[in-house]
């Protein structure tokens, strides 16, 4: 199989001539080269990886993106596109002396088409703004990563973002109809169309989730969905997450497809309570089930869900009685990661997936693994689709504990793969899990993915040295969690 030529990845800085070309591409007010300003772009939500880029460009149009990418292509300068920088796997980490293409200024909603149920947006549009725009017509944009109040659609496309409601509504790719993409050679092409089944390969399907390694999207056509007539959220308290997990299996077995099913364990409940006072019942395993649809259907299914909770020994069952109460329930859930800071000095956020039925077994094994090294692991997960977010708690101040925590979080990922799952359900591989991808896929699988990479980016300049395992055999360092600047500023809750 042919290998990509390696780009000029080892340069230490951009030349004055290259910077002049970038300035010409985006205009003087679209270029950042001062060190203190560049520091804003040295990491994303995975803050322990930091690399200072050579320059940041802030294009306002697809043409400016093209011009900037052409400069990079001409000199084989690595580039990475960036939205709000909320990613949790280091996907937006710059290359040293590379260019960051920030899409923050391309933040217009270009078209809203209610009869055909789509919107056309620029990549810098914030996820929640799409829903805000179409809500008056009774529609919403379904993918809802917890950072949705700040994260951008361009970043969602790169990561194929999910959220709690993808159990029913699917992921970013489910809702992406068409994309304009600047390829790594600077060509501007269109994948897909607002109408279905555009002839040719499904390049939009391939591009979504490619973590910035295939090009830069400059325009996205998103499907919007009719808001359901009724949304109801139930909380049920169980003695253990395993009992809550059994209830999830029973709900699925009964043929129901709730819009979300989430489980939190004691540690996670404690942390969330301390942070946002969501009035969760204290218990070993808290189950949150959201049902939506026609009112009459939701009422019937809620009745069934209650019965299944009772059957599995729920000690308390509550249905949020108002929209305010429902939002509070979700606020607690969405704040769970950031809230860990209240019960532990440091922690690592992981993102693994297992077949749903492996849940009790995997939770027991995680407990055992944690106890063996004297650490605590809090569990918050999208139980409906088996997406675990184990949070490994530790104290950096205790010598050697960080290494043990990193090793544990890494072994948890391996456990997920061993049980037939995946190393990432929504955070992406990025910088953090490159080696773990090599644990999940064999060499021929990875070589085949490289065929796609090389067709799009033969010089390997688009977000190089991400996603795929490096040739050298060094272990990954899954990062300890450090608060994102947005989070510190109180703008966002991240996970």
């Amino acid at each position: 199989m042919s290998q990509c030529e390696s780009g000029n990845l080892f340069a230490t800085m951009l030349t004055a001539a290259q910077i002049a070309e970038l300035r010409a591409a985006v205009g003087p007010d679209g270029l950042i080269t001062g060190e203190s300003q560049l520091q804003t772009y040295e990491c994303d939500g995975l803050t322990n990886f930091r690399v200072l880029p050579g320059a940041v460009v802030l294009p306002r149009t697809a043409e400016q993106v093209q011009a900037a990418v052409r400069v990079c292509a001409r000199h084989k300068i690595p580039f990475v596109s960036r939205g709000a920088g909320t990613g949790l796997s280091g996907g937006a980490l710059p290359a040293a002396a590379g260019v960051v293409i920030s899409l923050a200024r391309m933040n217009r909603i270009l078209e809203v088409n209610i009869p055909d149920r789509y919107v056309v947006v620029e990549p810098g549009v914030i996820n929640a703004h799409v829903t805000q725009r179409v809500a008056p017509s009774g529609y919403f944009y379904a993918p809802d990563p917890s950072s949705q109040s700040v994260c951008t659609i361009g970043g969602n496309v790169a990561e194929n973002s999910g959220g709690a409601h993808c159990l029913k509504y699917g992921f970013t790719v489910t809702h992406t109809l068409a994309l304009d993409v600047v390829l790594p050679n600077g060509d501007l092409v269109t994948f897909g169309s607002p109408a279905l089944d555009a002839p040719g390969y499904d390049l939009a399907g391939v591009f979504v989730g490619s973590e910035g390694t295939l090009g830069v999207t400059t325009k996205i056509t998103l499907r919007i969905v009719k808001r359901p007539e009724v949304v109801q959220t139930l909380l049920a308290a169980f003695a253990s997450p395993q009992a809550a997990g059994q209830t999830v299996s029973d709900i699925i077995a009964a043929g129901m497809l709730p819009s979300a099913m989430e489980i939190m364990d004691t540690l996670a409940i404690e942390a969330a309570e301390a942070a946002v006072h969501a009035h969760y019942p204290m218990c070993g395993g808290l189950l949150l089930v959201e049902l939506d649809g026609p009112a009459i259907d939701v009422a019937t299914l809620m009745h069934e869900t209650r019965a299944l909770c009772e059957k599995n020994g729920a000690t308390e069952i509550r249905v949020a009685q108002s929209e305010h109460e429902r939002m509070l329930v979700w606020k607690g859930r969405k704040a769970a990661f950031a809230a860990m800071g209240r019960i532990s000095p440091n922690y690592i956020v992981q993102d693994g997936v297992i077949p749903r039925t492996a849940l009790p077994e995997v939770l027991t094994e995680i407990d055992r693994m944690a106890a063996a090294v004297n650490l605590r692991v809090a569990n918050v997960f999208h139980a409906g689709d088996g997406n675990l977010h184990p949070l490994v708690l530790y104290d950096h101040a205790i010598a050697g504990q960080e290494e043990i925590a990193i090793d544990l979080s890494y072994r948890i990922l391996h456990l997920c793969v061993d049980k037939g799952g995946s190393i990432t359900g929504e955070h992406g591989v990025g910088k953090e899990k490159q080696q773990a991808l090599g644990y999940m896929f064999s060499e021929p699988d990875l070589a085949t993915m490289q065929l796609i990479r090389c067709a799009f980016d033969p010089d390997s300049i688009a977000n190089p040295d991400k996603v795929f395992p490096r040739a050298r055999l060094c272990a990954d360092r899954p990062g300890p969690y450090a608060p994102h600047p947005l989070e510190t500023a109180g703008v966002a809750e991240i996970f």
Partner: protein
Amino acid sequence: MPKAAARTLPLALTDALPPLAAIAGAEHAHLNDDSISISPANAGQIAAILGFAREHGLAVTPTGAGTKLDWGNPVAPRIRLVLDRMNALREHSWQDMTCGVEAGCTWATMQTALARHGQMVALDPLWPARATVGGIVATNDGGPLRIRYGSLRDLIIGMTVVLADGTIARTGGKVVKNVAGYDLHKLMTGSFGTLGVIAGVNFRLHPLETQSRTWTAEAADPSHFEAPLHALLDSYIIPSGLQIRIDAQHCALDLRVAATPACLDEHAAELTRFFAPISICESSETVLGVRQNLFDQSGSVLLKASLLPSRICSVLSQLRAWSAAEGTEFTAVAQGNGLVDIACKAASDASIALIHRLRPQCSSVVALQLPAELRNRIDLWGCSSSALPLMREIKRRFDPERILNPGRFIGNI
């Protein structure tokens, strides 16, 4: 991965048979007039067959039951790679609502097995009793259920593919939520066998729809459905099938909804309101199967058009007018999501004229099936995608010797 072998002189089929028979067993390799049919037992044998084909420059067409072999540009393969022996449902993790199936399994066989646990792959393709998983995926087929559950892109969670150079690659996995690595399976879905041979597919499953009702409204012209269709699509009703079927004389709208009985009763009342003054009556869900009839008409020109849902009624009205003007006999079934299948029986010139008239009105019009004499008169795929050079490059990377269905796909890929 093996290096590309130098292409040797064309091999006579009689000489190619023994080495191929050695791979799959003599009883599984047959000489036809113009090709060899060979049925591999596993992905390893597919790899060996492709290796042989590549070495000798023999074009290969992967096939299941052959129900859609006429779709796309014609290919004259020397090897017909028949997946009929690879027909097992390997795994049905019913509690996880996933399954893994070999590509040669027929759709109906798979669905029957899944139904034992009240589950299904939520797709209703053509010829379910004969068509195989691999062929359905390669052509990205799907019927009325798409409006509720999406297309194969949304239902496939993993795949095993054999590339032209013999590489056996897995992509995705067995879990519904997974963003690790590139989604090769999305590239393979709808690629018409031009990038690799699909050996196995993993699906996410849905519960069978146990309670449903179907309604039908008739009108003189599709324009009468414009307002009710808009109201319906903007309502809380979630269709599991929505189509307008039309020919020169008849025009009807069919709607199928799966929900609880009480909910269906509510919908019935709403529908009467949406459709007034047209009457809408309860009918049988078999009406949703009418798409199949179009594809069963032999000798027809078959078109797959795609348009925005808001344009369905006006384009169907135009289609009827043009057909009358051109003197063609046509039948069309438009799904509520904007995918329209059109069958027409017409003289050559009239058929070509109809396609030319339709194309500017639609997002795309692919001539899935054309009589042989028309095939060189029009571009079947009818598309000038800005991404075509990239698609060619992908083909070049995956199949540099062009042995897999050469020329069949868009842009003669």
